[in-house]
């Protein structure tokens, strides 16, 4: 599996994603600089977390106009798997590849902690092979992860089965306390209609080895590898 990891000025989870692909899964990983206008020969692409361009203006707002993004949009439209993590998710939203927008966390604090996620869909690029309702533990680290969409569009999103992850309690129950950033309907991750583009606020790349406290995040990368192998 050949996986590209985008690098913007201010990306800071790029090396973690690279590490998981290359050293945990044994795939081929390469960094793709934001000024590139073409992507190398890739099976999948990761848009990593961080604070691209300082998150000036809005999170992800400047990054979406980076030269490389035109090629990313094309790559995604071809149906190739794209995973956006945290700031990467926000960039994909700004680029129009994923629905919704992020507001400040409901209590206006930066949150850095473990959360529990329930897998809502198993037909996406990063959740195939997982069990529906499975609960994964991984960290979040964001100030703006409060997912927002107007009610009618949320209804449509749910009908289309595009809500991929929700914040839940350890035993998989919805609970306002577990929805730490106040996201609409506790949405933690979504996909596009084609299910090849997935974004989530939590960090699977920071929870891919037991030494890091949880290896649950590894399952998302393994799912990505399965999609690539099947293609």
């Amino acid at each position, binding site marked *: 599996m050949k996986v590209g990891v985008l690098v913007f000025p201010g990306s800071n989870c790029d090396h973690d994603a690279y590490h998981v692909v290359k050293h945990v899964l044994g795939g081929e990983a390469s960094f793709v600089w934001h000024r590139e206008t073409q992507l190398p020969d890739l099976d999948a692409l990761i848009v990593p977390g961080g604070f691209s361009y300082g998150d000036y*203006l*809005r999170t992800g*707002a400047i990054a979406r*106009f980076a030269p490389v993004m035109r090629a990313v949009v094309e790559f995604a439209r071809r149906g190739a798997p794209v995973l956006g993590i945290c700031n990467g998710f926000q960039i994909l*939203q*700004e680029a129009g590849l994923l629905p*919704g*927008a992020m*507001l*400040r*966390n*409901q*209590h*206006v604090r930066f949150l850095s902690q473990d959360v529990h996620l329930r897998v809502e869909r198993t037909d996406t690029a990063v959740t195939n092979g997982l069990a529906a309702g499975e609960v994964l533990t991984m960290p979040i680290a964001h100030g703006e992860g*409060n997912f*927002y*969409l*107007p009610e009618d569009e949320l209804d449509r999103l749910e009908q289309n089965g595009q809500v991929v992850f929700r914040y839940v309690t350890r035993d998989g129950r919805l609970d306002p306390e577990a929805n730490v950033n*106040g996201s609409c309907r506790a949405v933690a991750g979504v996909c596009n209609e084609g299910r090849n583009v997935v974004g989530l606020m939590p960090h699977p790349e920071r929870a891919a080895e037991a030494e890091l406290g949880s290896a649950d995040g590894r399952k998302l990368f393994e799912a990505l590898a399965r999609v690539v192998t099947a293609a």
Partner: protein
Amino acid sequence: MKKARVYVTLKKSVFDPQGKTIHEALHSLGYADVQEVRQGKFFDIQLGELTAERAQALLDEVAQRVLSNPVIESYRVELLP
């Protein structure tokens, strides 16, 4: 040279965590008459010599495409004399 100001605010229907926090802080300082606070931002923009019409069209485009996120925000353009 033309000057303009573009205001970007969260839509009325969108919860504003920052505005709410400021509102609560004002209340705790005793400003009981403050009923709501909504936070936003503005951009002071200088343009070259353009007709008012061209300036308005350019700023509408920039505000929609870059300065605001239409999912959560709305904007208002003000051409300054």
